[in-house]
């Protein structure tokens, strides 16, 4: 799942880094979380854009979400894995800032062009 988020950032040509959250920074239900942080030139730093958490059976136990396995007598708890995908607003500002040109226009990354009627450059 983390690979999927990385693939999207790579397709958008946005530099990023991956961090493992430490025990004190993780969300309530997570056993382990990876954050993807995108480069923001205006802040000269990486900022969180996506978070992928493994909650194991923690959420499933609260929800009583189970599955039937032929080898098990009782239904078993499911495991949940959550990826924020990508925050679209933060992604938008990363595209605006990273792909800006001196004339104020924005170069459109190739995979987005079909969604913008083939536009290669966005005049602002």
């Amino acid at each position, binding site marked *: 799942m983390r690979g999927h988020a990385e693939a999207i950032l790579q397709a958008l040509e946005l530099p990023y880094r991956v961090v493992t959250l*430490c025990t004190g920074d993780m969300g309530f239900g997570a056993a382990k979380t*990876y954050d993807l942080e995108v480069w923001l030139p205006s802040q000269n730093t990486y900022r969180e854009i996506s978070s992928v958490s493994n909650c194991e059976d923690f959420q499933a136990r609260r929800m009583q979400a189970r599955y039937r396995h032929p080898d098990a007598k009782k239904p078993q708890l499911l495991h949940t894995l959550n990826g924020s995908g990508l925050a679209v607003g933060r992604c938008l500002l990363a595209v605006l800032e990273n792909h800006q040109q001196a004339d104020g226009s924005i170069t459109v990354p190739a995979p987005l062009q079909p969604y913008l009627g083939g536009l290669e450059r966005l005049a602002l």
Partner: protein
Amino acid sequence: MLDPKLLRGDLDATAQQLARRGFELDKAALQALESRRRELQTQTEQLQNERNTRSKSIGKAKANGEDIQPLLDEVSDLGDRLDAAKRELAEVQAEWDDAISGIPNLPHESVPEGKSEDDNVELHRWGTPREFDFEVLDHVDLGKKSGYLDFELAAKLTGARFAVMRGPIARLHRALAQFMLDTQTQQHGYEECYVPYMVNRDSLMGTGQLPKFGEDLFKLNDEREYHLIPTSEVPLTNFVRDEIVELAALPMKLTAHTPCFRSEAGSHGRDTRGMIRQHQFDKSRWCKLWSRRRATKRWKRCAATQKPFCRRLSCRIGW
């Protein structure tokens, strides 16, 4: 919610694991509740047995032509005591449930120890930040110059931490959302979903936002206690709440693009400029539900040397 077995049997080890994430487990309170629960459980069972035995003897006494009134009174008294014990047991159970619903998940053994984001550990980087030969504008200035990204207008319409997008920026925003959804559905096998943007209390309890983090949410002011979703993880994950799914249906891979609403109660003036931290923002969310056995198998592949305690915690996996 943690496995109650870990809180009954392995209390010290569990407390130690929780301490790694800065959570202090109130062991004494849990132990007191647990011993009270056991006591009441035994008491209930004893009263139940006693009442059954006495009830049976009524029939015999009647057949022998004895006066059954004292026996009837005794059974009725036992019944009252049983009801009282059952009620108290339910109260203690509710207190226990309440206490453990506020306990966070155990960190996986591979998670680095630390207090704040400063202690997060970088795994790798991709791409090289571009060198600009002109002065870089941030998105707020870029938007202001063109008028296509307007925070002041949003502040007039609603308040702080909202944005209005127009023209090419609104279109770029939509393009990004669609690109993400298409990539997940067409290349990675996720099912596209449209979900409610308001959820009930049970759903928020299920994914863990409630009972502890209600202040981060926007709650609707009516008796139904609906909340605006802080992420579509809440509706998506709750698809399977109180369900038993067939193995063949797993893994279940769901995706939705939705707005997310957060009160940012704890942000205290952080990131007040621009789109970084907004009350309303869009996100495409991925949610994967899978079987424990498959997860375990995968975990075994990637982690050969785990300490015995972690193994007992069932399937602690990497991915």
